């Protein structure tokens, strides 16, 4: 049973437009949610996070929204750039479990010039 789900394996957007990546979770016992970005042949890198007590966090072109009632997380990238093309993983951290993260399946974003 996948506790963190990314139902869209891929997304294609035009340069300059908004990219919206979605993530759903089934467990309320998470205290942090995070997004990671991964390029081919590299390890994932941390992008942005949000505490479960917040509903929005912004960092430059990246904004994460948390809708706790819907158990839904989204990452907005505005404006999208070709260098944003990568696989994006959402992750959730359970309370008091040694800091481990549970990851979604990933969404491959392609930003076309």
């Amino acid at each position, binding site marked *: 049973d996948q506790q963190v789900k*990314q139902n869209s*394996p891929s997304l294609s957007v035009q340069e300059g437009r908004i990219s919206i990546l979605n993530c759903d979770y089934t467990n309320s016992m998470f205290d*942090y949610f*995070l997004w*990671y970005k991964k390029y081919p*042949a*590299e*390890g*994932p*890198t*941390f992008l942005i*996070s949000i505490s479960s007590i917040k509903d929005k966090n912004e960092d430059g072109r990246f904004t994460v929204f948390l809708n706790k009632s819907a158990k839904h997380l989204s990452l907005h990238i505005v404006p999208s750039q070709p260098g944003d093309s990568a696989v994006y*993983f959402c*992750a959730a*951290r359970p309370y008091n479990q*040694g*800091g*481990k*993260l*549970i*990851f*979604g*399946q*990933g969404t491959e974003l392609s930003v076309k010039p």
Partner: protein
Amino acid sequence: DAGITQSPRHKVTETGTPVTLRCHQTENHRYMYWYRQDPGHGLRLIHYSYGVKDTDKGEVSDGYSVSRSKTEDFLLTLESATSSQTSVYFCAISGASNYGYTFGSGTRLTVV
């Protein structure tokens, strides 16, 4: 400037042979993790460690063992490799005061 390195980067091994992957960190972080990445599954936790000699199982631990005899090294061992263990393996570290991970560059393991 990598504070975390994985070795080897690539390995091909035969079914039934033992394999050990190494993760080395220079950040003195308490927590270390091993994940595997597979298409359609994302990143799944194999084992993790919260200190020297303190380890615990993740969601896909069958067929794997780990050891951490020093803060800086976390070893993942496949006792008898199977084709289902063909994957990309990532090590990650985190400190006690933060919640994000730093990942290594990964080890691509092929079991033939």
